[in-house]
């Protein structure tokens, strides 16, 4: 139900992100969504891409500090209140959201969530009206 997100450690200085993005480009990998958690010293870049496993191997081979982490990718459409439904469900079950980010375009979107209790979060999402996107569907999101 979860899918693989790439988490990348980058030093907070010019050029480090470019190097990583060039690797994606050279390998023909599409980035579907990304977010950066930044501090004064360093940044953590989180990337959802078309082929996470291949991207992981590619980055690792090039000496990048990269890890695969489990996140939920929840499918959204134009009905209002969907993110609120998920967040409320998690909060009522006392599940912490470690981070989340989303994108929305042409009436559909994805919400990525990492929680501190993956198993419990899975049950909450299953009981909701929403659906998780499996990893094999990711290439479909590259339009």
């Amino acid at each position: 139900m979860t899918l693989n997100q790439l988490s990348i450690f980058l030093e907070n200085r010019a050029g480090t992100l470019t190097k990583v993005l060039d690797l994606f480009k050279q390998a023909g990998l599409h980035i579907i969504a990304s977010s950066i958690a930044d501090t004064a010293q360093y940044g953590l870049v989180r990337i959802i891409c078309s082929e996470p496993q291949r991207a992981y191997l590619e980055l690792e081979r090039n000496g990048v500090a990269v890890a695969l982490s489990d996140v939920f990718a929840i499918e959204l459409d134009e009905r209002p209140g969907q993110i609120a439904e998920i967040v409320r469900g998690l909060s009522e079950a006392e599940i912490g959201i470690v981070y989340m980010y989303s994108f929305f375009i042409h009436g559909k979107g994805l919400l990525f969530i990492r929680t501190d209790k993956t198993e419990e979060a899975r049950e909450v999402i299953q009981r909701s009206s929403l659906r998780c996107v499996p990893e094999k569907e990711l290439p479909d999101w590259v339009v």
Partner: protein
Amino acid sequence: MIWNPNKECMSRDEMSALQGKRLHKIVQYVYHNVPFYRHKLQEMDLTPDDIRTIEDIVKLPYTTKKDLRDNYPFGLQAAPQSEIIRIHASSGTTGNPTIVGYTRKDIGVWSECMARSLTAYGVGRDDIFSVSYGYGLFTGGLGAHNGVEMVGASVVPASTGNTEKHAKLIRDLGVTGIACTPSYALYLAETMEQIGITKDMIKLRVGAFGAEPWTENMRAEIEERLGLKGFNLYGLSEIMGPSVSYECRMQHGSHINEDHFYPEIINPVTLEPLPKGQTGELVFTTLTKEGMPLLRYRTRDLCALMPGECGCGRTSVRMTPISGRSDDMLIIRGINVFPSQVESVVLSMKEFAPRYLLVVDRINNLDTLEVQVELRQEYFTATFDTPAAIDELRKRLADKLRSVLSISAKVQLKAPNAIERSQGKSVRVIDNRKLK
């Protein structure tokens, strides 16, 4: 004023005779009480009877920091534990600190040496004297403290930290003397300026500065900003602590308490003794120490012994300011730091590659230490994909560093392979401090 004219102004012949007598005695003492030295002398086919005059000292073996480490903690201690009344510790080159035990007599000698120093600076019973070296395992605080009590001045055991409060105390109590590192003195001056305490509001007139190298320019700046006269105070814990040597009012070289600590200058490469006036590595033999006497201890400090007599009336030999080190030891905020200590900590954590870079700087007159380490690629896992988790890892390293180094360091995490490798000898330290 001279605290002990009998010793400080002894004729050179008398001094040599006294040193020879004491050397013979100390060699006999360590031969019978420290197996390490007994074995060393036996290997060299020496007995205490071969050491009769001070000139015989060249026959004796050297002692190094490594010997102290190999004999951690009490291997070089000569006195029985029941005679030891205090234990100090200073930085070792790796994990273990250097342990020094003092007998009651040692503490007495130390206090007397410190009293000689303070008297030479012009400190007496009417002074209010603030000791702003760290109190604790470091010898600076308590060492200076005992001397101030011995001369009868009022000691203010301010220690380090809380500089603003300290500045106010200096003003409110009318503190006349201070012992601290020269860089702390500048930091104190700056703090005073920030909180509006001016030179005419304070009564400081004497500063005893040591535990780190400083220059004539720094002296001029401190004297100008704090309105005092600044004197050098030299020492090292392996030998005693502060007051192994001290400047007099001539401010031209530091008089060595050579009735207790016999100095030699050697070539650090060939280990040959060098004549007076030449710069080399300073070596000390403790002539009267009971707790942990050391024969020909290599300090790694570079300086020269000065020929000629001093205008102050003291006859004891003077040493020039320390011009450098013959090893890679750094002095940061008065604390000795060896790159190898950092290395041992970094190697103990599997998350980091066995590479590091120390960046030392002086910002607003306070030394800063940054330790750069590389995350090891294979240990960067999903657990570390939040700043909180990474900061926890940084904090773990910072805590370990603080406990080993006794000073805090800023940890800078680098990506794998981000620390530059140089050809040949790797650059592990960048010291941006400018001793102006």
